[in-house]
Each structure stands twice: as structure tokens, then as C-alpha cells.
């Protein structure tokens, strides 16, 4: 209790609260602007924290992290361009909602469920950090591979039209991520002797290209043909979701928060997997799955709850095992280390007060997010009043800046362009973009975990079938694929029947 009170004193100084607030704003801005990513914001904030006291420093980084995670949904909903890979699943229903004029409802819902998910995961983390980290340790390469494969199986639910097209997109994503030096054997793959290709295709750069460039090209083309819709004027009201809506989806939120926390706790996974799994979970267990992809509010609630629940989840392996779950938490880890806080099992013995202060900072960050974002919605929706062609120019500039700053490499700007034009072609051919990003997010993890598992077992597949956890997830993946196959066969059969009758 003494520790807790001291932590309160440390975390609730004006300086520390100010640091959290500043961090959240920075995170929100970088997360919500297409092209700019909050991983870059964290990298910029890191050196600033060196000169600060421990608690405000960590508070600034965590605020940026959490702000970025929620901010990613803003451009996903308003423009169909996710601000972070974790918000890619939110595009599926959030953007259709904007097209139907329900942008502010989607944004409001996203903020509220994000907060719920974040706080839920924090409570889980406080109550059960030791237990969860023990379970997380049991997830070895074989188990993580099976889990990620299960994540891959959500492609089935994402390819609304044809499963084949969804698979093509997924495989393209996997393919793109094999470029560069392979992490296990150090071999150069598909680099064609180019030093720049050695660094591989960066996920953030590809994401910017995949979602933003087709938007830009389409807008310019439509503008040229004069077919651009006039920006929605006048009727833009900042409606907030009703309490009843939230209450009806409370159970869905709880389940998705649990998914997010669980996925976050397993090192090497992350927000994007959690969001996609939650989305496909919500769709599968919905009474009206056909509404998904056409502006269903559940399609915003599920991924947004889950990806913020990941923030608390990733703190578990980060603090208790010293393993960062993604590039963003790796920067938070660097911030902790430089202030002399070495994460790991001894942390809870040696720096209990700091750990409590971190918890409090997370809560404060969510309070800030709730306030800033709910107030911000009024401003955000004005983005829709900007004529689309002007908006496209602004986004183009931001994307070029964003792609460059990820690794300070002009080459990344070119790769963004190439991937973007490719993505535009895919959209034209009716191939969905979302499975591409899913393949890109999951591919590297899936490959390296599989190969590590093979190294461990000396090349025997028995490492998979002797592990109940791995078998459970492999079974689930098989089930999902099977169900999808039978549904599509049945649909085809009934269509054939219809055409015969006609």
C-alpha cells in the first residue's frame, strides 16, 4: 500500500500528468494523420525523455503509445486509410459508416470502446501479471506459429466476394515480406544485388502505400472526370453513440477485450492480429453477418476494443519478461532501460513503486484520450468538408514525408509508390487489400516461428502435434477454413439452383 501511495504521488504531479497529456496528443496526431505513424512519434520522443525524471519520461512514452493506438482509428474511419497496422481491420466497417454519413458515431464508438479495452487489459495485467506471464512463457515457437496461422485463417472472413481472390491477396502480402535479409539464416532473398532491397519492405511503408495511394489515384481520376462527390456540407453533426448502443454490445466488448489482452500478452504477436481475430470473431458470432463490411457498428467495436486491449497485454511480457511485442514497445523498453528500470521478473521486487506509477500513467492516458478524442470528433469530421482533391494532395505530401521518416530512406518513398500503384491495380481487379496487409503483418512472425520450431525439433513436425496448445489453434484454423469452404459451396449450389429455376 505504501508503494501504491508513493506511486500516486509520483504519477500525479503536474509534471507527470502534463507529460502523459503531451504524449497522448503527440500520439493522437501521429496516429490519426495518414502517412505519419506513432512508431516514428515514439522514436522522436525517446531522446527527449532522457533528460526527464523516470516517471514523467515513461508517462510520455506510454501516452504516445496509447494515443497512437487509438488515433489510428480516426483516419481509418474517415478516409479508409488506417493510421497504424492495428487499425486496418477498422477500415472494413468504419469507412462504410462514414460514407453513410455516420462518421461521428463510428469515431465516438471507437474512442469509447478503445478506452474500455485499454482499461480492461490494464486491470487484467494488474491482477494477474504473474499468472499471465507464466502462461505466456508456455507459448513457444510451435504454439505461436499455430496461433498466427489461426490469425491467417481470418482471411476467409475478409474476402467477401471470392475466397480465391482473398487468398491471392494474402499470398501477395506474404511474398512482399520475404524481400530482404532473412532473419534466421541471414540469406539475401529477392534483393537482386541491391543494398536498398536488403533492408526489406517496411510494414509501415507498405501500409501507407496500400491504403493511401489508391485513395489518392482514385480521387485524382474522379476529379479529372468531374465525377467527384461534393463534400458533405451542412449536415455534419457530431453525434455520439448512445448509451444503449454501448450496453447492447457490452458482451461483445468484453470478449474482444479478452482476445486483445490474451494476444498482447504473447510476445511477437500484436495489435493487428488481435484486431483481425476480434473482427472475424464478431462476424462469425453475429446473428446478421451479412451486415459486416457494409457499415456494421460491431465491425468497429470489435477491432477497436481488441487493439487497445493489446496495450495492457503487451505490458505484461514487456515488464515481466523484458520482451517487447512490437517495434513500438521496443522503444518503450529502451526508455525504461535508460532510466535504470530493467524489465524482467526482478522488476516487481526492485521497482514496485515505478510499476504502480506506470499503471496510474496508463489510466491517466486513457482519461486524456477520452477527453481529447470526444472533443476532437467535432474537428475531425470537418476533414470531410475539405474537397476531396485537396485532401488527396495533402495526404500525398504527408505520405511521402511519412514513408521517408520511418527509416530515413528515400528508397522507402519509391517502394511506397510502387506498392501503392500495385494496390490500386488490385482494387481494380476486385482483389481486396486487407488480406495483403494481414499477410504482411503475420508473414514474418509465422515464418520465423515455424523455422525456429523446426530448429528446436531437429526438423520433426512432432513439435506441433505433441503440443495441445498448438493442436488447439491448428484445429481452429482447419475448422474456419472448412466452414468457409462448405458455406461457399452451398452458396454456389443455391445460386446454380436459382439460375436453373429462372
Amino acid at each position, binding site marked *: 500500500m505504501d508503494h501504491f501511495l508513493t506511486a500516486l504521488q509520483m504519477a500525479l504531479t503536474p509534471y507527470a500528468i502534463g507529460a502523459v497529456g503531451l504524449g497522448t496528443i503527440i500520439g493522437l496526431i501521429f496516429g490519426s494523420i495518414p502517412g505519419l505513424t506513432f512508431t516514428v512519434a515514439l*522514436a522522436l520522443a*525517446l*531522446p527527449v525523455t*532522457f533528460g526527464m525524471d523516470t516517471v514523467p519520461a515513461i508517462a510520455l512514452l506510454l501516452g504516445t503509445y496509447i494515443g497512437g493506438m487509438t488515433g489510428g482509428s480516426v483516419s481509418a474511419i474517415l478516409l479508409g486509410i488506417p493510421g497504424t497496422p492495428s487499425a486496418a481491420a477498422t477500415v472494413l466497417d468504419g469507412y462504410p459508416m462514414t460514407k453513410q454519413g455516420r462518421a461521428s458515431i463510428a469515431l465516438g464508438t471507437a474512442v469509447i470502446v478503445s478506452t474500455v479495452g485499454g482499461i480492461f487489459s490494464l486491470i487484467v495485467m494488474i491482477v494477474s501479471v504473474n499468472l499471465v506471464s507464466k502462461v505466456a*512463457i*508456455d507459448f*513457444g*515457437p510451435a504454439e505461436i506459429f499455430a496461433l498466427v496461422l489461426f490469425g491467417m485463417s481470418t482471411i476467409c472472413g475478409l474476402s467477401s466476394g471470392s475466397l480465391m481472390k482473398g487468398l491471392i491477396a494474402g499470398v501477395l502480402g506474404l511474398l512482399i515480406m520475404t524481400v*530482404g*535479409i532473412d*532473419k*534466421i*539464416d*541471414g540469406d*539475401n532473398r529477392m534483393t537482386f544485388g541491391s*543494398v*536498398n532491397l*536488403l*533492408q*526489406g519492405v517496411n510494414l509501415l511503408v507498405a501500409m501507407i502505400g496500400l491504403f493511401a495511394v489508391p485513395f489518392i489515384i482514385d480521387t485524382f481520376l474522379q476529379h479529372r472526370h468531374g465525377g467527384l462527390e461534393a463534400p458533405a456540407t451542412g449536415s455534419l453533426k457530431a453525434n455520439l453513440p448512445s448509451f444503449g448502443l454501448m450496453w447492447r454490445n457490452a458482451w461483445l466488448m468484453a470478449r474482444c477485450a479478452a482476445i486483445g489482452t490474451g494476444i498482447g500478452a504473447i*510476445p*511477437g504477436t500484436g495489435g493487428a492480429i488481435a484486431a483481425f481475430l476480434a473482427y472475424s470473431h464478431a462476424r462469425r458470432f453475429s446473428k446478421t453477418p451479412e451486415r459486416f463490411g457494409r457499415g456494421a457498428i460491431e465491425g468497429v467495436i470489435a477491432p477497436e476494443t481488441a487493439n487497445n486491449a493489446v496495450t495492457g497485454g503487451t505490458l505484461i*511480457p514487456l515488464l515481466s*519478461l*523484458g*520482451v*517487447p511485442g512490437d*517495434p513500438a514497445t*521496443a522503444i518503450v523498453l*529502451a526508455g525504461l*532501460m*535508460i*532510466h*535504470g528500470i*530493467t*524489465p*524482467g*521478473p*526482478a*522488476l516487481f*521486487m*526492485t521497482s514496485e513503486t515505478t510499476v504502480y506509477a506506470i499503471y496510474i500513467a496508463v489510466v491517466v492516458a486513457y482519461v486524456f484520450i477520452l477527453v481529447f478524442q470526444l472533443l476532437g470528433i467535432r474537428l475531425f469530421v470537418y476533414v470531410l468538408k475539405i474537397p476531396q482533391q485537396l485532401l488527396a494532395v495533402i495526404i500525398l505530401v504527408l505520405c511521402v514525408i511519412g514513408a521517408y521518416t520511418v*527509416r*530515413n*530512406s528515400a528508397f522507402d518513398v519509391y517502394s511506397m509508390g510502387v506498392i501503392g500503384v500495385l494496390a490500386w491495380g488490385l482494387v481494380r481487379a476486385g482483389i481486396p487489400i486487407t488480406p495483403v496487409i494481414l499477410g504482411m503483418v503475420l508473414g514474418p512472425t509465422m515464418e*520465423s516461428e515455424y*523455422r*525456429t520450431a523446426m*530448429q*528446436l525439433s*531437429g526438423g520433426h513436425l512432432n513439435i506441433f502435434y505433441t503440443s495441445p496448445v498448438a493442436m488447439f489453434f491448428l484445429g481452429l484454423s482447419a475448422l474456419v477454413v472448412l466452414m468457409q469452404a462448405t458455406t461457399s459451396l452451398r452458396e454456389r449450389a443455391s445460386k446454380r439452383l436459382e439460375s436453373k429455376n429462372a
Partner: protein
Amino acid sequence: MTPKRTIRALVAAAGLLATPLVALPALAQFPDKPVEMTVLFGGTANSIAQVLATEMGKSLGKPVVPVSRPGGGGAVGYSYVADTRPDGYNIVWNSNSINTAYHTGKIAFDYQKFAPIAMVSSEVPALAVKAGRGWASLDDLKAAVEKMPGKLKVGISGKGSFTQLVSAALFDAMGIGDKIAYISYGDGKAPVELMAGRIDAAVQWPGQYKSYVDSGQLDVLAVTGKKRVALLPEAKTAIEQGYDVDITMWRGLAAPKGTPPEVVKALQEAAQKATEDPAFEKAAKTLGFEISYEDSAAFGKEIAKDDAFYAKLLGHLGLKQQ
């Protein structure tokens, strides 16, 4: 001419006249603009670079800006800096990776493409096992491995990574080099895998073990440097235990070849001052690296010596490409 314009013209003229007076010493004085420091890796490499750059900026009088150019095992950043103008405004935060990146075929040029500025820090890998396995020293481990039917599973950071090179040298010196199976883990997961019992030993960095050693869950059997590591004072060196292995990962600064000697000297002095600063000493303690300053000449000799060493080691491991 209006009076306003006249004044402006006069000021401009005065400015023009004064320019040579101000500019000439400025030209001779390095630096007159920010210096860009290319950082090749994330993690500890990046954290040290941030602190070093801040401190160097203070003594140079112009900021030193760390710019991250990761990827390709250092190839991307090395290639970038090697192609910049040799004027001291583009320097690279380098490491043994200049030797390994060349010999494994990642870059077409070697260390001679750069002028050494100063060695700054060093990090020593450590070999750890799970507590309670009854292995207290390298000899215990050796005896156990010799009796083992299969191979010892050792967690490293990836094939051709520094941790694998160190492991290979250490286990060869112990005479059990052919009974080792290497398991690659990225992202610092090896200690966790060790805890879970999926691997038998791990060769990683002291900072990753620190918390587990404090909580009594892992034992560090050896560090591979000449001296013990401040972060893990209990852990003996391999040399203390009778195995002649002395490999440390150094980090330092280099500029493109052809950078004027007086510019290199200015940067070297700034680096030296930075390493003596309390803020840098504090960072060394918390991040788990050693400050090992060496001037340009000594650093250059060290790199050349290392180059021959890694050429031989990589050849022995079958990883040498050029």
C-alpha cells in the same frame, strides 16, 4: 531612395563587409552546421547513440543528430555514409558489423572505406543457463554435453549474428563445437525460451539476463571478454575458467575515407569528452555497456586486427562470402 531603404542598404553593405571577418574563422572551425550520425541498429545501439550524440553536440557547439538507417545487418547505413562527402558532417555509429557485413557479403566494401574517429563503448556477450541444472561453470557444462546423447540447444540472435560468432568461438575452445545446435531467436526472446526450458543455454547480452539473475532464475556461466562485466560481477570470464576466448563487441564512430585529419581530431575530442561525462557514465550503467574510449589511431588498429579475426572465424563457420 527612401530613408528606410537607405538604412537597409547600409546594413546590407555593412553585413557584406563583415561577412569575411565572421565567415573565415567559421570555415576553418569545424563544425559550422549540425553533424549527422547514422545509426545502424535499434535497441542498445540506438540508445547509446542518442546519449552520445547529445553529449558530443554540447562540446562541438553544434548539434549531433542521430539518424536511424537500419536494415541489412548494417549494410544500408554503411553504404549511405560511405557515399557521403568526406567533410565530417556525416559520420556513422559503427561496430564489428563493419567486419562481419563485409565478410558475409552484405556490403561490397570493407572497413578501409572509412576513417576511424574513436572507439566509444563495448559490450560483452554472456552464456547463461537455467538455474537448477547443476551447471555452475563452463567445465560442468562441457562434462554434461560430452555425456549428452544429442546436441546442446543454444539460443542465439540469428545465423551469422555476433552472438553466434561468439558462441562458435567459445564452444570450439571448449572442444564441444560439434555438439551444438543453434536456435535463432530475434527480438531478445532467448532468455524467455531458456526459462521455458525449450533451449539448454543462450548466448545474449548481459542486460537481457540481469533481471533473471537477480531473481535467481538464470545462472550466467561465462562472459567472453577479458574483464568481468560490471552489470554481472559474479559471472567469470572464459579466460578465468581456462578457455582462451576474448571477444567483445565494440562500438565507435567513423567518417568516410578522406575526411580531413583536423576534422577527425575535432570529432575524436568531442567523443572523448562525451565518454567522460557523468550522463554517459550513468547510461553505461543502466544500459549495461562498458565505456572503452580509444583514439583514432588505436581504434584503426583494433578494427584491422578484428577484420582478420572475423575473416578466419566466418570462414571456419562456412559463412564467409568474400
